[in-house]
């Protein structure tokens, strides 16, 4: 389904494609307290992952994909 931009966070759902990366990047940069919800995310493209790693938004909710949560945890640590 891609990304739903909500009031406090962006919800990344199902499969987030490479096209969504730029929109997400711009949106996250505008936020004072950037946050994303990855709980319904099945797969995200490497470009989107890169955006998340660059901006390091707060992650709301659980991350179901162990590899993804590991990847995000590593860089935040």
């Amino acid at each position: 389904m891609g990304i739903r931009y909500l009031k406090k966070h962006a919800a990344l759902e199902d499969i987030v494609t490479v096209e969504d990366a730029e929109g997400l990047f711009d949106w996250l940069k505008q936020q004072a307290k950037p946050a994303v919800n990855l709980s319904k995310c099945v797969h995200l493209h490497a470009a989107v992952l890169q955006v998340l790693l660059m901006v390091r938004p707060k992650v709301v909710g659980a991350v179901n994909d162990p590899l993804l949560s590991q990847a995000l945890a590593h860089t935040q640590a």
Partner: protein
Amino acid sequence: MNQTELLDQFILEARECLEQVGQRLLDIEKAPTDPELLNDLFRLVHTLKGNCGLFEFKAMERVVHAGEDLLDRVRQGALAYNNDMADALLEAMDYTAQLVDQIERDGKIAASADGRSTQLASALRALLNAPPPAPPIAAAPSSQAAAAPATEPASPCPAWVEALPDQPWRTHPQAVIWRYQPEPECFFKGEDPWLLARQTPGLLHLHVGTQTDWPDLADADCYRCNLSFIGLSDAPLAYVEDHFRCVAEQLEVLPLSRLAPPSGAAQAPTSTAEQAAQRHIQTLRQRALQIWDDQVQLLNRGGARPGTVAAVRRALHQLLQALSDDTASQAQDSMAALPADVSAAALGHWAAAHRPADLASTEDSPPEVTDPGSPWPMPADEALTSPGQDAARRGAGDDPAHHKVLKVGQEKIDRLMDLIGEMVVAKNALPYLAQRAETHFQQRELAREIKAQYAVINRIAEDMQHAIMQVRMMPVGTIFQRFGRLVRDISRKLGKDVQLVIEGEDTEADKNVIESLADPLIHIIRNSLDHGIEMPDVRTRAGKAAQGTIRVSARQESDRVLIEINDDGAGIDPQRIRQKAIERGLIPEDKAQTLSDTEAVQLIFLPGFSTADTISDLSGRGVGMDVVRTAVERINGSVELSSQFGKGTCLRLSLPLSMAVTNVMIIEAAGRRFGVPMDLIVETVRVHTDDIHHFKQARTTVLRGRIVPLQALHDLLALEAPPVMNEDSEYAVLVVRAGHESVGLLVDLFHGSSDIILKPLEGVLAGLTGFAGTALMGDGSVLMVLNPKELL
């Protein structure tokens, strides 16, 4: 698909694989450092090995496996590819091809093959420069990753390895670590490095990092990839490399076993590592037992057919081999004692009785872990990796979505061809029927309807024939492929430096034409190598490049295929040819001197001609170019030779595209009908008796200012009656081409032309000269087709 079909498929694929492997080996010799070629070669050999594993062809698998290991090392750059290696590999592949032949013939490999295969395998392993750790590897095939680095010196750890936890050294001594740094522009190529990385086979750990530090958010470009993936995988090295093959240059991969573990890790390898290994063995064993139980259930279900029983038996046998401990080998022996046609119940009983024990009871004698690789299917995610890129990589032919290829045995197509031939003949009976309806039964209306129906059937049959012909078309490249090897082997043996250039290998022709070409072409190329191309020093002295060139080119011209074989060698010395022909008593001396140089060169086509004074294994037996010419003419082709002394020789073969259907002209002599192939006929004329000049026994006439010798077909075939004239006292003359001249054949009547399926004479009739073959006519009669060349 039952077992025989599977086996047929295996043979087919193995042959194809071997052919390609042979080709790649030769290609690599030209470009030994081309990683693309090496990868391709490795993949082919790997496939072949995997296929062997499906069946119990140990002797074959042993050789191929050794080859695979060697190539794996070459591919990783641990060994340099050299000629010895090429020789050993070619020899091994030759032997494998022999084994495939044997499998096709007998369905199995004779036990005697073991010795030779072990020998070849150890010859290959000897090239791994380290002493082979365990020569008969087939007994317990270890994984490739494990086999290769056995004696490899430990290489220092790259710094990036530190990103991984140091546990793997203890728990997964066989694992490989890799670092994948996608190029910055990769997103624009449709790649998803994250997906690729996380789908790595056997992934144990994945670390995501950056290649450089993140730039300021303000001027960052989210579409420039700055990710770096470091992973740990317990799949064999080759699988990991295969997984990343599209981005091979962005990948670094190292087997852990080749690395010196970082400080600390080395001291504690024992207990935990062993425990992990034990755990693995236990899992494997449990899986094997599960399969065992499934098989037993299958047997107990009742109503199992003999095929199922045989399959179960094979599966059980494989399982026992995989377990390979003492009890398993005992069970294997007792299984061998079961009768070949054992019933389902009996086998079920046996299986229940001999079920291998759980690990708990055999813990003190840990069984060998078998290769998790080849005999088992590839990991499932292998198939998921970006299919688009795969297709581009492997060529459109392999991509199921674009191009579906059906592999069919040749004999099936041959059968189709025979059937359509009969169809054509049967169809040709309809006009006779129409004629009979009209003349015999006075049913003109019916006759017309039959003719109308005939037209429809005729059209369909022609289309069908055309379609089948298309199926039978094969690119000439299939036989050109063999030349590379031939040229390589012979030129090395003779100490010559020869380059083979092949052009137009995509040109297509009928399968039979192509196949009957193989031998003549090999002969011609051998001649070029042996007599044509000179030794390098002679060439340099003559002002030519030291490397000789043989150029084989094929192209299509209207309904014929032209194949030219050029060499830039010494050419043919007409004087020497004349002299040799006289020496061998092939032509009288006075005649030899009157021949022009071009004509003299053609003497090499005479049977029994040879210029070589000694008989070598290459030439000198006097069965040379005449065999070539006979073979080519048998398929209605022709050979032309031109040679410039000192410059080179050119042979030009002209062949029909297809030889399934022959157009013949039907003639009559002494009340009998004969066919004459249309492509040999120059014209049909009626010649008045007054225009025939008699000179002793010979008769000639002048046609369009040229003297044409006349022969009566009746005399040539020893028919009783003389040729008959029509009421204007004219003879019917069929002018045919015989070699370079035209000859007139006196016949009684012309009957028009017909398309026929020419069947060559077989059995006792095969020795009959003067006839090209026979054909069945629509009215059921047999037409003898003349071969004027042999007749005159």
